[in-house]
């Protein structure tokens, strides 16, 4: 690996690393608009100019197109570099409308940020500004204001290189250059939201977020999208218990910097009217639903009680379910039913969207293999059950009918299963709890609590803890950390995983499939 020098800091980086990334590793931030780690190099904003030391003396060049090679030395903070940045800011702003007070990008705008860091000049722009097209409705999710644009061409390259739709283009020339679409066309792809994300200024804004909230009021919590089994890494942006938007979070191994538009909607139902807010028994809100459920399980008897694992529920919740069964109803049957819930559009595009709309199918498969003896959809249809306890999955839609005399449902939202259930227990939405999910790559990823659970909901693993207690033996799953540790000890493929050490980008399960599970609990379950 070549050694490069950035402001006299020597650092070893992989050959070919561009100097913006190399500088980042060395602890220096080089300002830039057009450069994006997951798009090709355009080199047009000229903001990342640095001084490279050459035998002929220092030469100004753009850092994004400078690749690390042995002995390359650059300066990112010299007087000349500062002067260039200042002048680039002046050029960028001379035709900018400066409509920050009504611009949604305010607070996360690179023009604002870099003006404060690198501009700070007295304006000399007294000429008439060039007018361009404003408020253009170019897609279901995107509004384009060409006057705010800095022509960085990130959105153009996104369409060319990521979605392959080639829809946005730089039109016209000189200072009349503006981003636009061909006449009569609209953005047609499922990744429009990313355009607003990668736009460094307020030219492309997301209709779902326009005029909703100033970004500086929002807090960001790292999470994972639960819209499908890809589990794109996300940032949930929320204020005072309300979620305003979900943005992709960079994870080069999962979703790079992107996420799909349906995924952005996953958290929009947090406060929706069809949330299940309090436990009900036979349609009536009751304070002792867990005791009632425990009594009914006992009345049905272990032989005629079934439990369904949830591919939409967290790893901890599924673990808690299995522990409740193991400790309290060892004779009960456990099932797992593949499929999607009511209303899901099972679209797969080879990019990020997966037809499996469950965020934890791999986690359920992992625990099912460990537990052993888990039945599928056919087994469930054939089983003669008096009571079926369902964890989050919409089992009625998946089976196309009711397999049991009565259903107890642990869930977040009303759906066909909740409507049929005689006992309904509210559980926390993904943004309301700490937990883990396993995506299609078998990557264990954390979600973090951003807001408080609505109504009387608690995380599903805590609800199952309460059920276990009512049945006589609590599974000890009230804390996600302890629950995870217990799983990591017990499940061979999770051996060595540590909840805290999952970090921001998650960890893969041990790749080799170990011989299934210790014999004892399986024997007990049967």
């Amino acid at each position, binding site marked *: 690996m070549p050694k490069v020098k950035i402001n006299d800091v020597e650092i070893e980086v992989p050959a070919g690393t561009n100097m913006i990334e190399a500088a980042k590793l060395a602890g220096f931030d080089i300002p830039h608009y057009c450069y994006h780690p997951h798009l090709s*190099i*355009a*080199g*047009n*904003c*000229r*903001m990342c*100019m640095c001084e490279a030391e050459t035998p002929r003396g220092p030469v*100004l060049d753009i850092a994004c*197109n400078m690749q690390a090679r042995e002995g390359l030395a650059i300066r990112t903070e010299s007087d000349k570099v500062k002067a*260039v940045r200042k*002048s*680039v800011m*002046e*050029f*960028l702003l*001379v*035709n900018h409308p400066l409509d920050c007070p009504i611009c949604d990008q305010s607070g996360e705008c690179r023009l604002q940020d870099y003006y404060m860091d690198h501009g700070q000049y007295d304006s*000399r*722009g007294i*000429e*008439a500004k*060039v007018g361009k097209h404003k408020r253009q409705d170019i897609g279901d999710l995107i509004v384009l204001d060409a006057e705010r644009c*800095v*022509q960085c061409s990130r959105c153009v390259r996104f369409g060319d290189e990521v979605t392959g739709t080639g829809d946005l*283009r*730089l039109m*016209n*020339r*000189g*200072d*009349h*250059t503006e981003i636009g679409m061909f006449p009569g066309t609209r953005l047609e792809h499922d990744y429009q939201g990313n355009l607003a994300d990668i736009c460094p200024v307020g030219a492309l804004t997301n209709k779902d977020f326009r005029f909703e909230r100033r970004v500086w009021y929002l807090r960001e919590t790292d999470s994972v999208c639960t819209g499908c089994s890809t589990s794109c890494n996300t940032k949930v942006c929320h204020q005072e218990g309300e979620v305003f938007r979900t943005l992709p979070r960079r994870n080069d191994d999962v979703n790079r910097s992107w996420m799909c538009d349906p995924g952005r909607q996953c958290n929009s139902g947090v406060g929706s009217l069809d949330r299940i807010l309090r436990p009900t028994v036979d349609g009536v809100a009751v304070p002792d639903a867990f005791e009632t459920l425990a009594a009914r399980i006992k009345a049905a008897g272990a032989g005629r009680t079934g439990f369904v694992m949830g591919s939409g529920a967290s790893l901890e919740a599924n673990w808690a379910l299995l522990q409740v069964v193991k400790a309290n109803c060892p004779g009960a049957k456990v099932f797992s039913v593949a499929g999607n819930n009511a209303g899901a559009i099972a679209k797969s595009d080879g990019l990020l969207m997966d037809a499996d709309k469950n965020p934890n199918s791999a986690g359920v498969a992992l625990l099912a293999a460990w537990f052993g003896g888990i039945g599928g959809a056919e087994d469930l249809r054939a089983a003669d059950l008096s009571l079926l306890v369902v964890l989050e999955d919409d089992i009625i839609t998946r089976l196309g009918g009711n397999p049991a005399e009565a259903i107890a449902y642990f869930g977040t939202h009303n759906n066909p299963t909740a409507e049929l259930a005689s006992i309904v227990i509210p559980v926390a939405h993904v943004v309301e709890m700490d937990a883990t999910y396993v995506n299609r790559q078998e990557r264990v990823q954390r979600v973090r609590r951003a807001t408080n659970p609505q109504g009387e909901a608690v995380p599903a693993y805590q609800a199952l803890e309460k059920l276990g207690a009512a049945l006589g033996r609590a599974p000890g799953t009230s804390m996600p950390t302890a629950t995870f540790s217990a799983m990591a000890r017990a499940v061979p493929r999770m051996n060595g995983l540590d909840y805290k050490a999952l970090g921001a980008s998650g960890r893969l399960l041990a790749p080799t499939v170990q011989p299934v599970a210790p014999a004892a609990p399986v024997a007990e379950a049967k």
Partner: protein
Amino acid sequence: MDFPRILSGNWDVPDSHLLSVAKSRGVYSQLPRALAMAPAEITQIVKDSGLRGRGGAGFPTGMKWSFVPPAEKRQGKSVYLLCNADESEPGTFKDRYCLWLDPHLLFEGMAIASRALDCHVGYIYLRGEFRYIARRMEAALAEAYAAGLLGKNILGSGHDFDLYLHVGAGAYICGEETALISSLEGEKGQPKLKPPFPAVEGAWRSPTIVNNVETLAVVPWLIQHGAAAYKAIGTEKSPGTKLFSVSGHVQRPGVYEIPMGIPMTQFINEYAGGLLPGRTLKAVIPGGSSVPVMTPAEVELCSMDYESISTHAGSYLGSGGFIVMDDTTDLVAALTNLLRFYAHESCGQCTPCREGCGWMHQILCRVRDGEASEVDLGTLRDLADNIHSKTICFFGASAAMPVQSFLTKFRGEFLDRVQRRGAGAA
């Protein structure tokens, strides 16, 4: 002065664009010889001749050719030879005569170059406004193809060279070689980031050589007479002859082929017929609108070659677009007009040039109209400095250099304009 007319020798012959006439004048006589030579031998002759690119930058042609990676390092990619016939630098109008009056000389030059470069496909990128030339060139191409001088197995040599004419849409920037490539590829005509350079990765990401019309048209003469004969003409660093297109306040504007190195005053007075009666020289732009302007004192010192113009006047020979301005010229208006061109032609890709050219033009309009202050002249100078060499291609510098040089060398004229406003207000 006795010198061979390498480029314009056939221009006075009637119907010189027809193959039969061209052949009778010796065009294509060097093609069989060149096809029998080893490619490296041709490149060596061009290298030894010291021929410098005639498009404006004056880069040694032989050296440019040698940047093409050898066949074993090309991963099976073709080499493309592009002829830059997008002549659109204000003040430059030499290539159009080469194309109009002697197209076959260019074809022969390109065929020989293709042999040297192991290239089998070439394009002539013609300026959009030259449609009338396109018709004549298409006919000339058809004649050359029919005679077996282009196409497959040229003259039985086994060398294939297909030559196509591509007409641009009339954008100045497409004369910049990477923008030309973008345009040829069907993209918006915008310069590409360098590196990689076209010789390594150009058209369709393949090794590509882009040469000016005049450069390629010299090649047959080099094959015929050898490098030494070429070096014997002109100066040491500027060998050979060069076409100059003279416009402005002279008695005989037009295109002249002269050996490099003759004194500039001699060129103005003897070739261009001198200034109009009773006028005195005010300024000269020696190499197309992009190069720094020269004062009469600098004109006295300079000769018509690359090194003298850069040494004595800090300017460039450029494309040989020689613009003469006499004492009746309003230099403020002249510069404003130039900047109107650059503001219009900036491709709009990178920030300083996109925003700066229009801004400079607006300031200049105010200066011209007497509505500016001295502070604006300072701003103008700053903007030019901030554009120069901060951009992807040379366009930024091309727009900045006239501003910098006019403001420095003719500052008084600009100060008069801004001060007049003060006087008027008082």
